[in-house]
């Protein structure tokens, strides 16, 4: 058996090291994203779907809420059953918006009134706090229930410094089971960014029974 020459062994070693480094560079670092900033998935524990944007200093996530979840939440906060049902059937999502920049980074701003919902050939805006305010006024919702509702929603307009975020509900005013596309916008240090979630699904109004 002929022993490999020193230069061949060295080259092999360099090659291995180079491949290792290449492999390492291909593995995304924790907390970073590669490729498309939009991801979609299912929460294993609940089976509910989510749509997420992570890029250009922002994390924005929509997670389905079953109409029954929304009914139960607002019934516990002073809503009459007919008002809780009315709201629950308006396509409510749990929502997170966060400035992901490190300390000293850019400021983010959004305005929900600029966002567009495309469904069944029409385009409309979100049902924001202000729009709901008029609806509840007309329906005569009691003040304590209105306070709980108002603060449960994602703010209509917000400005985030690095590490700031809000968690709240968003309502798209569509029937359960409707699919829609969402065009969303935000500004980062004055520069406008936009993204689109396609095929977002308002969760169906299902009432699962316990399995025997």
């Amino acid at each position, binding site marked *: 058996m002929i022993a490999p020459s020193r230069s061949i062994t060295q080259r092999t*070693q360099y090659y291995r090291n180079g491949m290792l480094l290449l492999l390492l560079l291909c593995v995304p670092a924790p907390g970073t994203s590669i490729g498309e900033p939009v991801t979609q998935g299912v929460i294993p524990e609940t089976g509910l779907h989510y749509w997420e944007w992570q890029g250009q200093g922002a994390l924005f996530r929509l997670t389905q809420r079953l109409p029954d979840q929304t009914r139960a939440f607002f019934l516990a906060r002073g809503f009459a059953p007919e008002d809780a049902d009315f709201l629950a059937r308006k396509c409510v999502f749990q929502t997170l918006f966060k400035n992901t920049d490190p300390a000293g980074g850019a400021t983010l701003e959004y305005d929900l009134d600029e966002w567009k919902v495309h469904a069944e050939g029409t385009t409309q805006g979100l049902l924001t706090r202000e729009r709901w305010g008029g609806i509840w006024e007309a329906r005569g919702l009691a003040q304590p229930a209105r306070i709980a509702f108002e603060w449960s929603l994602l703010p209509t*307009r917000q400005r*985030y410094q690095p590490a700031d*975020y809000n968690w709240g509900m968003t309502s798209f005013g569509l029937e359960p089971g409707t699919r829609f596309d969402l065009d969303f916008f935000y500004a980062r240090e004055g520069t406008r960014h936009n993204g689109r979630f396609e095929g977002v699904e308002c969760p169906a109004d299902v009432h699962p029974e316990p399995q025997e």
Partner: protein
Amino acid sequence: MIANKAKTLLFALALLGLIITQATEADNSPSTLHAVADRPMAPDFALADIDGAIHRLSDYRGQVVIVNFWATWCPPCREEMPSMQRAWEQIQDEDIVILAIDVGEDEDTIFTFTADYPVEFPLLLDLDSRVIQEWPVRGLPTTFIVDTQGRIAYRAIGTRDWEDSALLNTLKQLHDR
């Protein structure tokens, strides 16, 4: 041969260092308070806590006050309560006060909440949301740091790690000024 082994070892150490750096950076999410320009005066309030005692913000002049707006149904608000309690245990002897203002809920709701999230600092009731509407708040939780002269010095939207030493130092330094 020995030189090659040394190179491989150095390379492995470099890789390990890189991985550790990445992991550390990922865990080290910013926990900063944001300075409020020109430090506007904090709107005064007089609110009852869950035992009925009245707390007036202006009575705390000369102390640094953490004013936290929250609600029991708000998951991030619940999430930061334990860290706020642990911070309170560190700062309560340093003339730093925490006033956590619940928005729109009654004593019974908050009392039930404290069974799962025991806290020792005052939990105040803004039943009709009149106080929160006077403050620059758009979502919960939002927290303000009021300086010894009653001015809003810092603000945080969303949760923070209130035990973070850099954050606590910011509060202590504010007290010294």
